[in-house]
């Protein structure tokens, strides 16, 4: 258990990493919410959606946004990656501990690793297909959702919301003084709400895709 640490390591590194993981996580969840509210405008019709997307693009808000989110995501991955169990043996011991105690919170975290990696891959694909089909327009998105990507988006939505829900819950457990039960309920309700918004948006896009 005792091992000499490098003497020249900046003693504040681990604290900064902790704060970066926390801040970037919160910002990314914030982005997911904003994103959901933007996309859901399609419920009010393709033109509402297009007006919004054109407005955002005109002032380079989309481009800047994508770049910012990319940077925040890099910071997030960089600061949380140290927590990912390295190698098969470590993964196995995490799942074993969770399994032997049948402990929900530990399971929740073990799944964070899986969902985090899934998001990494799926979100990259999502951004890629959006970028090659620039600019963002309701009909294009609708066609995409209707044609091949419905299942893809459902999976991305579920893993992203799961990851952000468990992440937020754990940050509050770590820093704040709210009872875990109430906290779990509050986070669950918020996630259910944002899921509903996203599902509504997907449904509207799918229908739009059917009509065109």
């Amino acid at each position: 258990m005792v091992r000499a640490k490098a003497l020249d390591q900046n003693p504040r590194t681990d604290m900064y990493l902790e704060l970066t993981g926390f801040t970037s996580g919160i910002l990314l969840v914030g982005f997911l919410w904003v994103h959901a509210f933007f996309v859901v405008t399609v419920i009010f019709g393709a033109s509402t959606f297009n007006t919004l997307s054109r407005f955002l693009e005109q002032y380079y808000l989309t481009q800047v946004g994508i770049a910012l989110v990319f940077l925040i995501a890099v910071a997030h991955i960089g600061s949380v990656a140290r927590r990912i169990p390295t190698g098969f043996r470590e993964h196995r011991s995490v799942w074993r501990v969770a399994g032997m105690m049948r402990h929900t919170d530990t399971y929740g975290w073990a799944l964070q690793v899986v969902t985090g990696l899934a998001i990494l891959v799926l979100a990259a694909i999502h951004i890629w297909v959006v970028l090659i089909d620039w600019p963002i327009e309701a009909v294009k998105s609708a066609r995409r959702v209707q044609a091949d990507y419905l299942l893809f988006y459902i999976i991305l939505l579920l893993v992203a919301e799961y990851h952000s829900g468990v992440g937020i819950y754990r940050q509050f457990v770590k820093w704040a003084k709210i009872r875990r039960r109430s906290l779990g309920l509050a986070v669950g309700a918020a996630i259910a709400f944002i899921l509903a918004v996203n599902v509504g948006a997907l449904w509207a896009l799918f229908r739009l895709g059917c009509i065109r």
Partner: protein
Amino acid sequence: MGRKLTLDIFRYNPSAGWTKPGMQTFELEETPGMNVFIALTRIREEHDPSLLFDFVCRTALCGSCGMLINGKPRLGCKTFTRDLPARTTLFPLPLFKLIGDLSVDTGTWFRLLALRTGAWLHTSRAFAHSILEERMDNETALKIFEADRCIECGCCIAACAKVHVQDEFIGAAGINRLARFLLDPRDERSEAQHYEVLGSEDGIFGCMGLMGCMDNCPKDLPLRDQLAYVRRRMTAAGLAWGGKEDGSRNRKTK
């Protein structure tokens, strides 16, 4: 007549020359008020005198009977068989050095923890038995006592996935132990000195908030509050830290 209990117990005694670990099944009749301590004692008396397990106080104060009861870290003396199913599995606590069967050495782990974190009161005042003890206000004393209730049973360590993958992590018991000195006005260490011990991935910033510790602490210590308190306080200390004068790793014990 009581229930018939079946206990599947992990057996391995390396010092007796055993080469292979395995499970052994024992059956016994449940008696009123039976706990795992009584059950194991009966097994040792009636079935197999070679069964190894630790008990000292039988009242959840010594912390020696931590073991995995149906996979969960529990104290044998505090776990009543009436709360268990008819078939129960007993394993020694993981992570600690196995002495044999259900007996593990938690002492070495906790001693190393104390040594490497300086987990004792650091004061320049010499002890004089002729003068009265310093007074402390009741609220502070109670807060310190809340952390001091830890019996070092090791359940929170065995329950922490983080310690399983990073054995230098001092775990909830370690952080809780140091929180006690953060609270103690008699301790003369500066925030920076506390930070040196706690402000790293092996200290508070290694904790991932999984709460395996709190959910399995047999003494119901408010571990989450302790962890959050230390985390907030050490973050503040780290942010305020000039970094130079205390940058050396030599802890001043004064």
